[in-house]
């Protein structure tokens, strides 16, 4: 009896420690952003006086200052990133599903080889070929356009791999056969029957593809040079310049504006995102 009691007591203590650690970790996640949002509402003098978690009343003033800054158009940057990320996501998802479908549904010669190829190139990071990519785009006159940032997404090996795994488990081939017998063309079968059945997988992967494209810095930095075409992360890098360093309130406000859309998306879809992360790890 007493042994049982001490066991449950040590268990309660262990639990207590775990909850405290988890709460500390949660605070660690949120604190930098909390400071950022709060400082976005304070003026430069208040920020330099010390850290605080009580919002100030300078939000509108900071917004006005930020708006008057030359060459820092948050809305333009957001629009550019939105444009690139949306097209990247649409192309990556459609063509990856198409490729996976080709590999799963049809038994053609070289099918295994094609899949092995995709598995091998999956591991090659794009950064290592950026120099050759850039000089090639330069020759094609595509530097400072969005084409080199969007079109390569048609070939996304990891997405093909994921969609293939999902299809093997979740696409009944009998339905496709039935559509075929009804005289449905192959591409139409894919578009009207297979694609809709992939919706759950597509939804999760859409979030990840979109966010990954939105967050990219290395590739656009190398390829884009006129400031009205800057993506959001490229604009963020401008905030480090001395011209912004004189007024911290606007720096924090600008940062908040870049983070806010992701916060909204994340907290709205967190359930699916967390499930998607778990799925990605196990499938491998």
């Amino acid at each position, binding site marked *: 009896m007493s042994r049982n009691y001490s066991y449950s007591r040590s268990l309660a203590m262990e639990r207590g420690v775990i909850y405290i650690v988890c709460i500390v970790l949660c605070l660690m996640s949120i604190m*930098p952003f909390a400071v950022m949002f709060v400082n976005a509402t304070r003026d430069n003098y208040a920020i330099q006086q010390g850290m605080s978690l009580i919002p100030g009343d300078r939000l509108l003033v900071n917004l006005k200052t930020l708006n008057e800054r030359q060459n820092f158009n948050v809305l333009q940057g957001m629009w550019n990133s939105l444009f690139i990320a949306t097209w990247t996501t649409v192309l990556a998802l459609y063509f990856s599903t*198409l490729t996976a479908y080709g590999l799963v549904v049809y038994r053609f010669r070289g099918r295994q080889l094609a899949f092995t190829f995709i598995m091998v190139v999956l591991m090659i990071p794009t950064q290592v070929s950026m120099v050759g990519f850039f000089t090639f785009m330069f020759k094609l006159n595509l530097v400072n356009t969005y084409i080199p940032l969007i079109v390569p997404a048609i070939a996304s090996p990891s997405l093909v791999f994921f969609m293939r795994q999902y299809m093997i488990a979740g696409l009944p081939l009998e339905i496709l056969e039935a559509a075929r017998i009804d005289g449905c063309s192959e591409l139409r079968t894919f578009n009207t029957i297979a694609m809709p059945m992939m919706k759950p997988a597509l939804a999760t992967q859409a979030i990840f593809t979109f966010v990954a494209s939105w967050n990219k810095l290395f590739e656009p930095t190398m390829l884009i040079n006129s400031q009205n075409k800057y993506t959001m992360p490229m604009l963020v890098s401008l905030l480090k310049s001395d011209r912004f360093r004189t007024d911290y309130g606007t720096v924090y406000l600008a940062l908040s504006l870049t983070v806010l859309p992701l916060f909204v998306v994340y907290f709205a879809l967190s359930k699916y995102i967390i499930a998607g992360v778990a799925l990605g790890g196990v499938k491998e």
Partner: protein
Amino acid sequence: MTNRAPKKRHAKGVDTSRYGYFFIAPFFLIYLVFQAYPLLNTIYLAFQKYMITGTNKVVGPTFVGLANFKNVLVKGSTLQAFENTAVMWLINFIPQILLALLLAKWFTDTRLKIRGQGAFKVMIYMPNIITAASISVLFYSLFAYPQGPINSLLAQLGVIDKALYADSGTAALTAIYFLEKGWHTRLIIAFINFWMWYGHTMIVLIAGMLGISPSLFEAAEVDGASPNQIFTKITLPLLKPILLYTLITSLIGGMQMYDIPQMMQMQGSPAKTMTMTVTMYIMELVYTGTKDYGRGAAVSVLLFLVTAVLSIILFYIMRDKDATRERKALKKARKEARA
């Protein structure tokens, strides 16, 4: 009629198989043009003298053999950049995997029944989804000198002298100039990486642990194994493939580290030599001043080789151990059978 039906279907099946080529064609076409060719082009450029000077004069490409490699390895900062990348990756990865394992162990422990796991996961994973550039500039601002929030906090806590701190003339004596110090900056960069990624690793490991058959744990418990024994003898060995996956993806990602260290760079800061990563070095070669594509390509090829070799080594270390263990077990079993 009934005789012909299956034959016809068979004929049709053979007929449709060629569609496979059409379906995978766009992928391969785009891959060849936008990824395979650029990779080969990079390798080709690594052996050429090819640059655009500050006055927009194009030099080359002319074949120079291994001169670019020799230049970046002997004269350039390649080795330093590799060292910086490796050091910053290691001080992020080791605590990351340990904390992720610990949290995953807690969250999957049926004895503990931790509540609110969903909320914890959402909060802990959150930094991973936010733009790394924004996070870095945020930390850059938090660690500003002399009156950034971290220095203010340290003053409020009494770690650095408040009286001196209030007087901006003497602030330099006490406030810490974080981003000017090599190790300070390295640790901040490693911390951001750790902070952004341990939640991701934790979720992957939890998924892996939940994938282990519960009957194994039950059997061990019945045999009187302690929770720690179960963790080290059952959970960890069975988690090996996922640990390997985590290690390799983190290593490949870590070798490409760019956004965070780049954003942490203060103009003209002496910390740069200790925090410049390989991709930052490539960018510096091909983007600032004389655009030297030959040398940039040479560093890229080295990065590619190092990444590939490391992944292959890791893969084989993890695989061989398994194989030898299996062989040993087999031998033992045979011995026992003979006895």
